[in-house]
């Protein structure tokens, strides 16, 4: 049997979920023996999301044009998409800007009203991705196969989610150890 093609992506989040993933410590070695890491900000240096990915952990909400395009690509090219952590599942802290009424208001507040020196709005098309008006959770953009809440999901929860998948089974996302938010 071919190895499972495994990926992780980082959208609008603090990377805390990825840090928690690294907290898997020595189990990472076991995981690495059973999967091919084909794309991951912490596990590979590949810049383009590949075709035919089996499992992908998606950290973060969808906050800008880059997040949106990458997520759509991930969904097209991945069998099983896991909404990874509270930002992916609820939009969480990144979405606290949603109450400010749109991207323009957020940019003005951040780069003009609160600027100490040379206030100016960032504008570099093709380099700095445009903000979306609202930050939304992953499942509001594409279908999600497994939800793994937590801020961040503890390493044990990540392991308990991935282990059954390695055996070809679906994890049971129930109980405090698996689905507690925050």
């Amino acid at each position: 049997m071919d190895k499972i093609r495994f990926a992780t992506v980082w959208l609008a989040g603090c990377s805390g979920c990825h840090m928690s993933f690294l907290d898997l410590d020595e189990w990472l070695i076991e995981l690495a023996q059973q999967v091919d890491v084909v794309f991951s900000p912490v596990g590979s240096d590949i810049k383009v999301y590949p075709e035919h990915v089996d499992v992908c952990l998606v950290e973060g909400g969808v906050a800008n044009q880059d997040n949106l395009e990458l997520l759509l690509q991930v969904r097209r090219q991945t069998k099983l998409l896991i909404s990874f952590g509270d930002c992916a599942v609820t939009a969480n802290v990144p979405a606290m800007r949603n109450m400010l009424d749109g991207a323009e208001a957020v940019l003005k507040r951040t780069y003009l009203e609160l600027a100490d020196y040379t206030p100016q709005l960032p504008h570099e098309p093709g380099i700095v991705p445009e903000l979306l008006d609202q930050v939304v959770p992953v499942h509001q953009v594409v279908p999600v196969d497994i939800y793994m809440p937590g801020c961040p999901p503890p390493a044990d929860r990540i392991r308990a989610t991935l282990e059954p998948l390695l055996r070809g089974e679906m994890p049971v996302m129930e109980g405090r150890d698996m689905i507690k938010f925050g």
Partner: protein
Amino acid sequence: MSVKTLKIDGKDIAIESGTTVLQAAKENGVAIPTLCHLDGVSDVGACRLCLVEVAGSNKLLPACVTEVAEGMDIQTNTPKLQQYRKMTVELLFAEGNHVCAVCVANGNCELQDMAVLVGMDHSRFPYQFPDRPVDVSHEQFGIDHNRCILCTRCVRVCDEIEGAHVWDVAQRGENCFIVSGLNQPWGEVDACTSCGKCVDACPTGAIFRKGSTTGEKERDRAKLEFLVTAREQHQWTR
């Protein structure tokens, strides 16, 4: 004392008339989930989590405000009720701005616990991201309306136990909010005795002690029970 006989989850029960279905279930070891119920104050049926099925009625009835009646046949945990409870909790999360990660009540929150209990791993409803204020005008306490689920425990505990009636519910529908005094900043409400019972009663991190940060909120729920026992049974023990 007149007694009613009824069935809860198939179990035969005899209990004093005037008892609520919630109380009858509890006394017979059947746990019904609740969020707005608080021992010692009146019930209002606000959260809809304690809905039960009663044979012969096509409506789901809130156990906390439904009195037992002779011959009732009650189911408390059918798949239908489980579905509704999960949906209710998802709606509560989608309606407010509940960011567990940065909340004073993280790890000690009845809404967070309820989400685990009903098996919510995400909300199927789009988040509303309402623009709600935070009032920290009181010297000791603050209220963050983003985290409020309108259970009205604070309203009842302040009115019925402390006797100050600082809190009430203003507006209607999605615009409802917990109002202090005559819609004044909390710190300017003369009626407030700064007793802190609303902090202890609040199931979430909506009402908190100033100075407590993420995950630091603690409640002294035993204080409320002590006061009710003292008043009703004249026993000053805790």
